[in-house]
């Protein structure tokens, strides 16, 4: 993974409201190589993320618009989305 390429992060529903933004871009440190480490890194950034990810195991994740588990690696990721369990239909 090219560590200088910024990755787009997207947030939806109440996650978006708690964090205060729908979208942002970050160049991630090399140590952030999985969804789990990314969530931990975000939580360190400020209290809004910590609050949004309080029950982190319940938060759903998509990499490049496909559902993934929290142990998924970020290799090849250009867009990572975080959202609550879905309520469509």
């Amino acid at each position, binding site marked *: 993974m090219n560590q200088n390429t910024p990755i787009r992060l*997207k947030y*939806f*529903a*109440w996650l978006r409201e708690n964090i205060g933004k729908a979208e942002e871009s970050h160049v991630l440190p090399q140590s952030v190589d999985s969804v789990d480490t990314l969530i931990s890194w975000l939580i360190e950034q400020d209290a809004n993320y910590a609050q949004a990810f309080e029950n982190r195991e319940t938060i759903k994740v*998509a990499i490049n*618009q*496909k*559902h993934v588990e929290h142990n998924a690696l970020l290799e090849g990721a250009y867009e990572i*989305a975080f*959202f*609550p*369990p*879905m*309520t*469509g*239909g």
Partner: protein
Amino acid sequence: MVVVRVQEQEFDIAKEQINLVGSRKDIGAIVAFTGLVRDITEGRKLSKMVLEHYPEMAESELGRLESEANKRFDLQGTTIIHRYGELFPGDLIVLVLAASQHRQDAFSAADFMMDYLKSNAPFWKKEYYTDKNEPEWVNAKTSDDERLNRWF
């Protein structure tokens, strides 16, 4: 034929069914599921609902869902149309059509697609009530995940 549409505007069930059939004469059964907005949820009166969605992923996920249905069941066509935006009690939210030679697969496919959609389609409902100032995000139901698990 596989039809996927994510749109703000209302859909016409009869038109979509006609569209799915086209000029085919070999379809024996079409099952249509329509989801609507109810006016009362958990005792509270709804004034409106706003459906948020993840645009790029919604279409691809619904496409994946239909692909899966077409692999599992003997189908001649499927349609999924899911709306987003501001919806009011009585409004149509989602349409799922499954066409097959025989009714068994049509019924099962429609059931499967709705279960899959409920758990995996990136849409989120926010409810606004007539008797409350604060709107609320709808919580996903564990029963929906359980329903999905029965197919796997």
